[in-house]
């Protein structure tokens, strides 16, 4: 779609694109991570579930990246944005680029991220950017199923055997510090919120906690989630990534890097 987007908000074009990329890249990179489970799930139902969730996330990313490309107006489409940007140009939350490790850590991260997305889509559906609002309203329906799936497994494994509980506790201790980035407001976030484009990240925290904390309590994992915040703050959404990001992008981008513009 080469259409020029009629922008009516107060944000600069670059800020607007950046704001959309933060949301798009979080869906894309988690979708890529979950797709690594294809053929490796513990049972076939869960193999299918994780790859179905990956498919939803990549679908959301496609819509969002297409929108970002149209806003940018430089002729970049979803493929160019996904496959030909360098690591520092990605704007995803750092938590989604962390390795899957075991099934428990995978579903626990899904819980933390799906609860954040659920809160985000709900508020983003009222965005001044009509396309962004439509994508959010559509995605909200899908995310609700992701959230249920992750919540079920978190309880089952957390309040499970001694071994599953040990692993889930360790996974939560590892993942929890990365959730601080979810609610960290920076200058771009404040500008986007003031323009009515996207909610302030900190405004998502009450809804997120209302989803996550009861599940962690039921899963007997709540003590690993406290204290609520840590001094550690990741900066994925500002393009500063963990050491895992390059290893994720290499196989994802290999084809387009070797044969730029190749199509099926």
């Amino acid at each position, binding site marked *: 779609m080469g259409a020029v987007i009629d922008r009516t908000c107060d944000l600069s074009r670059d800020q607007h694109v950046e704001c959309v990329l933060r949301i798009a890249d979080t869906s894309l990179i988690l979708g890529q991570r979950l797709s690594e489970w294809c053929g490796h799930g513990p049972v076939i139902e869960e193999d*299918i579930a994780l790859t179905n969730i990956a498919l939803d996330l990549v*679908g959301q990313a496609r*819509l969002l990246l297409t929108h970002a490309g149209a806003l940018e107006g430089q002729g970049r489409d979803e493929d160019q944005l996904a496959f030909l940007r360098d690591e520092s140009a990605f704007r995803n939350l750092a938590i989604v680029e962390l390795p899957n490790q075991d099934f428990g850590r995978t579903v626990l991260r899904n819980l933390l991220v799906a609860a954040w997305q659920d809160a985000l889509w709900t508020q983003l559906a009222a965005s001044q950017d009509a396309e962004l609002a439509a994508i959010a309203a*559509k995605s909200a329906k*899908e995310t*609700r*199923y992701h959230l249920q799936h992750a*919540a079920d497994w978190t309880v089952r494994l957390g309040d499970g055997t001694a071994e599953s509980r040990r692993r889930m506790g360790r996974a939560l201790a590892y993942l929890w510090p990365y959730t601080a980035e979810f609610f960290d407001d920076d200058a771009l976030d404040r500008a986007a919120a003031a323009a009515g484009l996207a909610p302030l990240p900190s405004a998502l925290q009450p809804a997120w906690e209302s989803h996550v904390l009861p*599940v962690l309590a039921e899963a007997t994992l709540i003590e690993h989630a406290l204290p609520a915040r840590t001094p550690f703050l990741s900066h994925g959404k500002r393009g500063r990534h963990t050491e895992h990001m390059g290893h994720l992008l290499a196989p994802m981008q290999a084809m387009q890097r070797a044969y730029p513009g190749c199509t099926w």
Partner: protein
Amino acid sequence: MPLPNTLTHDSAWAALRAVPDPEIPVISVTELGIVRGVRLVDQGAVEVTVTPTYAGCPAAELIDAEIVAALERAGASQVTVRRQLAPAWTTDWIDPDARERLRAYGIVPPGERATGLQPIRLQPRAADKLACPRCGSGDTERLSQFGATACKALYRCRACREPFEYFKPL
């Protein structure tokens, strides 16, 4: 003024009613509720508005191609498929007649949609109570929230021992 072409609004819709869903061939794309509008432009050119079921549905591109092919067979000179996201597709738009055909095909049609934010119900989650599409027994259990496609969940009947699918409400 009649168009210099055999394609009419009615014949375009009729052509679309004959396009089956690639994954669930017992229902058509119109019965699925994804065709939101048909507009004859001029000279036999037609614009079809389609809304996706799931954002990542892998059948979406095939559906677009089949819509184009069906309308060209019906006499369209040019077909444009326009994607519309809002309002988001819902299983409430599935045609009532098609629901019974789904059941006969072995897929339980979608039930009531949950509206608004739902509290997380914890394991063991009381899954929707479904009657087996084959034997009618209510003694069924959910195996997985996600089935062979994103839009379906996987169930099993404890009475007749057969697995079946459930078209999830969205």
